[in-house]
Structures are given as C-alpha cells and as structure tokens.
C-alpha cells in the first residue's frame, strides 16, 4: 500500500514549489481538473441514486404480488420505521447497539494495536502469539457465544466480550503487518541517529503502519458489528439484535427489515467516524494535503 498515488507523487517530485509562474499554472490546471473531477463524481453519484431508485421500485412492485410475511414492500418498511420510532422502540435499541459497539470495538482497537505492535517489533512475541492469532482468525468465532455465556453469564459483559473476540484478530494482524513492513532504509536511518526502541515505534514504525492499522480497524469494525447483533440476538434479546430476533420469530417482516437497516446505519456511522479519525491523525496519507504547510 502506498501513501500517495504513484502518479501524483511523481508530479510533485518533478515540480518543486520554487517557481511562482509554474505554481500558478499548476493551480489553474488543478482547478480545471477539479471541475472535471467534480462533474465525474456528480455523474457517478447520480447513477448510484438512480440504481437504488430502480431497485426500490422493483421491490415495491414485486412485494405487492407476494405474501407480506415473505417480503414487506419498501413503503411497509418505512411505515414500520415511523411506527417503531413513535413507540420509542427503535432509537433506544439503536443507541444500545452503538454503546456495545463503542465499548467492544474500542477495547479491541486498543488491545489489537498494542498486541500488533509487540508482534511486529519482537520476533519472540511474534513466535509466542502467532499460533493463537492464526487459530482465532481461522475460527468462526460466533461458535464461541455459548462458551462466553457460560463464563460471563447473560448481560452487557458477555456481549462486549463477543464483540471484542470477533474484532480483535484482524486489527492485530494488520497492525503487525504494517509494523513489520516498515522500510529497512528508515529503520537504518533511525539506528544511525541512535533512536531508542520506543522512539522507533513512535516516530517510524507506527506512523508507517497507520494505513495498515486503519484497514484492520475497518475490517474489525464490520466484524464487531456482527458480534454486537449476534450478542443481542442470542444473549440478551435487547437492542437491535433483540428486535430482529423477536420480529423474525413473529414473522413481522416489515419491522424486521427496519431494524436491519438501522443496524447497517450503525456500521455506516462507525465507518465514517473511522475515516474522519484517519484523516485527522494521518494527514500525510492524503494526497491532496501533501503540500500543506504546518
């Protein structure tokens, strides 16, 4: 994975910001290409909206010809959505899922990054921990749900534990991969200036690993959300998972779909927060910000 696109970085390398005339020409050129780019973005966004609209229309028409227990139409789902909001069922459930996700994913992120750094920098730590990481990464971890309930009982703790267990491994693997991939020339450079191990991790390996870590966090977030919903469905029957389980048992397809859509909203919000965080802490990884002055 590279920090900037090869083409953009080559352009920058060829044109040092020394010549004002060239700089102006470049800015004008980039504004023109910005216009072209925004038009292209507009076009793709338009096609996407159209695609979703066509899909919803077909669904609406098809749903009208099918038993509503099998498939609720979009309008039915919308009605259920409004009704559940009015009854005060949906949003508390949504917030509960956010809360479990926030706690579980937060623990997995911190733990996964710390363990990943250890495994990336120490061959001994790597040798000790690798069998477990490989095992858990390969195991369908929702199979552990009954065991987790036996250990920690029914409640918040067991749901958070499931969430952590699902999310942790991708974060560990990506972090250690990013740390281990730190270019040898940068590590040599750090040794020449007699950096301590702590300084190498803080100033060289960790910044280099940030794009890898965020890739791991995105995968971990998706897995954590599965953990949240599975936990609520299987353990507490509360929150969005509880709604999904109960509505499914009662063949209430419209509220069921409303709850599912709400749970994907949880995932979308989490992903957006992650991306904003990445831009904030790793601005050098944004091509457009490479010229930014501090």
């Amino acid at each position, binding site marked *: 994975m590279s920090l900037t696109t090869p083409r953009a970085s080559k352009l920058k390398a060829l*044109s040092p*910001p020394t010549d004002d005339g060239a700089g102006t020409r470049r800015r004008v050129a980039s504004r023109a290409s910005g216009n072209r780019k925004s038009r292209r973005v507009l076009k793709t966004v338009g096609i996407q909206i159209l695609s979703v609209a066509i899909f919803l229309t077909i669904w609406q028409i098809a749903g009208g010809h099918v038993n509503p227990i099998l498939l609720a139409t979009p309008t039915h789902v919308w009605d259920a959505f409004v009704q559940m909001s009015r009854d005060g069922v949906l949003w508390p459930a949504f917030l509960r899922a956010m809360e479990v996700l926030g706690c579980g994913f937060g623990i997995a992120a911190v733990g996964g990054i710390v363990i990943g750094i250890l495994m990336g920098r120490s061959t001994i730590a790597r040798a000790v921990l690798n069998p477990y990481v490989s095992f858990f990464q390969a195991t369908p971890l929702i199979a552990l749900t009954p065991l987790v309930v036996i250990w920690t009982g029914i409640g918040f703790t067991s749901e958070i534990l499931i969430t952590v267990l699902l999310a942790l491994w991708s974060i560990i693997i990506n972090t250690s991969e990013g740390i281990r991939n730190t270019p040898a020339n940068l590590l040599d450079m750090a040794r020449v200036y*007699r950096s301590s191990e702590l300084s190498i991790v803080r100033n060289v390996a960790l910044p280099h690993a940030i794009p890898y870590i965020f890739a791991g966090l995105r995968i971990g977030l998706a897995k954590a959300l599965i953990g949240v919903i599975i936990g609520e469905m299987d353990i507490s029957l509360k929150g969005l998972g509880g709604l999904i389980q109960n509505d499914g048992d009662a063949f209430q397809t419209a509220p069921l779909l409303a709850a599912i859509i709400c749970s994907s909203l949880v995932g979308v919000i989490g992903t957006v927060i992650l991306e904003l965080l990445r831009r904030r802490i*790793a601005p050098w990884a944004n091509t457009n910000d490479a010229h930014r*002055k*501090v």
Partner: protein
Amino acid sequence: MTALAEPCISIEEVSKSYDRPGRHSTPFTALAEVNLDIADGEFISLIGASGCGKTTLLRMISGLIPTSSGRIAIKGREVAGVPDRIGFVFQDPSLLPWRTVRANLAFALQRHNLSAAEQEAAINDKLELTNLQDFASYYPQALSGGMQQRAGLARALVGDPDVLLMDEPLSALDAFTRRRLQEEIADIIGKIGATTVLVTHDVDEAVFFSDRIVVMGTSPGSVREVVHVPFARPRRHADLVGNPDAAAVRDHVLSLVLGLS
C-alpha cells in the same frame, strides 16, 4: 598534521563474511582484509563494480553491521554499534514522510540532549547551509529529488558530526542536478571540514570530490589500489573539464574499475 597523528578512521584487517544458505558449508566472503587509514578532514571515495563490498565497508564504519574480523576505530574508539557524532546520507533520502523537513532534522538530534533553543539554532544553521530555510515546514513528498537529498544532507550534518558517510547519495538524480549538487556539497563539506567517506559508482564524481579514491575489486571484495587526487578542495567542475591531470587520474581510476590495468 604530522605523519604520526592518529587517523580519524582506522580500518585494520577488516573482513566480512556471510553464511551461505543451503548446503554450502563455506561462508561467503564479501570483503577480505581491508586496511585503510583516513586522516582528519580527508575526503575518501570507495568505488568499484557492484559486489566489491564498498557499501558493506561503509555500513561497517557506521556500525550498522558488525565486522566479521578485524577492527575499525573512529578517533581511537573502536566501533561497536553506531558511534555518536557520525552523519549518514542514504541512497534513498530516507526522510520520514510524516514529518516536515524541520522535524526530520530534529529526529537526528533526539540523543543530543539539547535545549529547545539550541536545537532550533542547530536546525536553522544547517537549513541555511543547505539552502533549505524556506522549505523547513514542507513535507518531503512536496520536494524534488535533489531537495530531498539536500534535506538528507542537512539531517546528516545537524549533529555536527566528525565523520560524514554517504552511500551513493546522488545516484538517483539527473546529470545536471547531480553536478550542481556535487558543487554545493563540496562547498558545504569544505566549510565544516568533516572527514568524509563516499560510496559511488561514478568515476567523475569520485575524482571531483576526493583526496584519495579507494578502488575496490570483486570476489572477494578487496582494495585494489588507492589513487591520490592532487587538487585543492573544494573544486569546481569547470576547473576539471579539460584539465589533463584530472583526465589522467580519471582514466587511471576507470581502467582500474574496468579491470584493464
């Protein structure tokens, strides 16, 4: 300086060998029994075909890799691990992309125990010396290859090293930028007077910079001949072009490198 003065860098009977992977039982000798004394303030180039061990020797001087046998000492102190007061310019500029030029220089000062004001002064001084004062707050990706390498040189000099080591620092640049930067670097080194060891595969570059050129041969890597370059430093390309003495040195080194003599 008298003939008895202690050399800045002394290299005695230094060899480097690596274990061969697989069934080979004999280790591979990358470098065999190099002896070389480098005086204070001297500029030495190591030149030779790839595989002659010139980069290996430079990395052993820097303490980045250990010798297999023999002894390297800088100012009388044996090199074991990276010594203090050395500067290193890498082939790839090896700047941290997430740090500005100024912060990249600060990285090289982290073990120097300077106050914030002293550090600031040291950085400003070397930025000015390398003509980068206007680019202190730029990220490396926003600079051209030549400017990145100048930042690499500024970083190597910021701790006021006794010894400057350079590993093909200009090999990635185009011919024009390279010549201009050669003159700038020669002037800078002339000002600070650091003892310098340069690894290069460019005979003209070696002649342009060096007091002595160490021509190395392969299998195993070893010193073939040490050639003196009898011109005052720092030099100008204009002075060397058309100079028959310079041409003679150049031809001699080139024929040694090519194995013609």
